[in-house]
C-alpha cells in the first residue's frame, strides 16, 4: 500500500503540474491569434514607420486582425517595407484599403491601422503578397514640433 500511496501522490503532482501549464497557456498567454495558423501576407511601403516593431498588431477599427511579421528597407530609395501577416478569417480587403502607423494612447506602443476601402465592380481584392498603395507614415513628435516652430516663425 505504501507504494500505491506514493504513486497516487506522484500522479497528483504531475496532474497539478500539467494544470499549471494549461493555466499559464490559456489564461496568461496569448493563444488566440498566433495559434490558428491560416494566414496570408500583405506588404506596405511607408516613408517613416516611427517606433513600429516586429510583432506589432495590425488593427481594423481596434480589432487585431494580424501582426507585423517583418520590417526591411526596400528599393532604390531605401523605403521601409512592412510585411503584415493577416488572419485568413479577414481576407476580403479591397485594393483601395489604406494603412497608417498609429499610436495607442499618448505614449503607447505603435500599431498599424488598416482601413478597408470601398468595394465595387472595378476594384480588386488584395491577395497574398499584394502591396497596399495608400499608406500614411507615423507621426514623429520632433517633426511636429519643428513644423509648429516653423509656422510660428512665419507669423
Amino acid at each position: 500500500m505504501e507504494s500505491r500511496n506514493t504513486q497516487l501522490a506522484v500522479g497528483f503532482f504531475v496532474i497539478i503540474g500539467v494544470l499549471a501549464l494549461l493555466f499559464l497557456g490559456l489564461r496568461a498567454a496569448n493563444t488566440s491569434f498566433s495559434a490558428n495558423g491560416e494566414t496570408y501576407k500583405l506588404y506596405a511601403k511607408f516613408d517613416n514607420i516611427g517606433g513600429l516593431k516586429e510583432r506589432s498588431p495590425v488593427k481594423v477599427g481596434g480589432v487585431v486582425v494580424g501582426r507585423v511579421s517583418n520590417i526591411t528597407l526596400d528599393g532604390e530609395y531605401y523605403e521601409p517595407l512592412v510585411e503584415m501577416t493577416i488572419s485568413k478569417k479577414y481576407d476580403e480587403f479591397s485594393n483601395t484599403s489604406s494603412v497608417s502607423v498609429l499610436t495607442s494612447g499618448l505614449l503607447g506602443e505603435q500599431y498599424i491601422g488598416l482601413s478597408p476601402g470601398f468595394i465595387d465592380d472595378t476594384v480588386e481584392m488584395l491577395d497574398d503578397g499584394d502591396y497596399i498603395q495608400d499608406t500614411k507614415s507615423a507621426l514623429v513628435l520632433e517633426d511636429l514640433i519643428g513644423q509648429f516652430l516653423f509656422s510660428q516663425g512665419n507669423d
Partner: protein
Amino acid sequence: MLDKVAALGKTVLDNIAGAGKAMVMLVRALIGKPQLRKSWPLLMQQMYSVGVLSLIIIIISGLFIGMVLGLQGYKILVDFGAEQSLGPMVALSLLRELGPVVTALLFAGRAGSALTAEIGLMKATEQLSSLEMMAVDPLRRVISPRFWAGFYSMPLLALIFSAVGIYGGYLVGVRWLGVDEGAFWSVMQSNVEWGQDILNGIIKSLVFAFVVTWIALHKGYHCVPTSVGISRATTSTVVTASLAVLGLDFVLTALMFG
C-alpha cells in the same frame, strides 16, 4: 613561494578531476539498457521525495512572491498611471525569471541538500559498496532514479510556482488594490507569448534541473565518507548549485531575450 604555486596547481587539478568524475558518474548512471520494470517503482519513490514533498514550499513561496510583485509593481506603476500593466509585469517576471530561478534555488536547498546527505550517508555507512558486493550497480540503482526524478520534477515545480505566483499577483492587484480585472488578464494575454515566454521558461527550468540534480548527486557520491565530509558536501551542494543557477540564468537570458 613554490609551495603556494603547487597548492594552486593542486586546487586546479582537483577541480578538473572532480568535473571529470562527475561526468563519468552521470554518463555511467544514464547510459545503458533501460530496465523499465525495475526502475519505474524507484523513480516513483524518488519523484515522491524530491517532487511531491517540495510542493508545499514551492506553492507558498510562489504565492508570496506573486503577492509581493503585485504590491510593489502597483506602487511603481500607479505613479505613471499604468497600473493596467500590472498583469504583464507580474506574469513576465515570473515566467521568464523568478519561476525557474527561485524554484531552482529552493529546489537546491530543499531537495538537493537532502539528496547529497542521503547518498553521502549511504557511502559513509558503506551501503554503496554493499550494493556492489551484491552485483547491483549503485549508479543505476541509486543515482539514476534520483537524477531523473529531479529532472522531471523541477520543471513541473517551476510551472506550479509561476501559476501560483500569477494568482498571488491577481489576488493583491485585483482583489485588494482594485486594478480592473478585465484589463489585468487581457493586457497580460496580449503581452505574454507562448513560444517566447512560457517555452523559454520551461527550457530554463530544464537546464537548472539538470545542473542542480547533477551537482547534488556528484557531491554526495564523491564526498569524503565522514560526518565532517558529509556536512561539507551538503553545504557545498547548496552553494555550488545556487551559484551555477544564477550564472547560467544570465547566460540563458542573454541568449533567449538579449
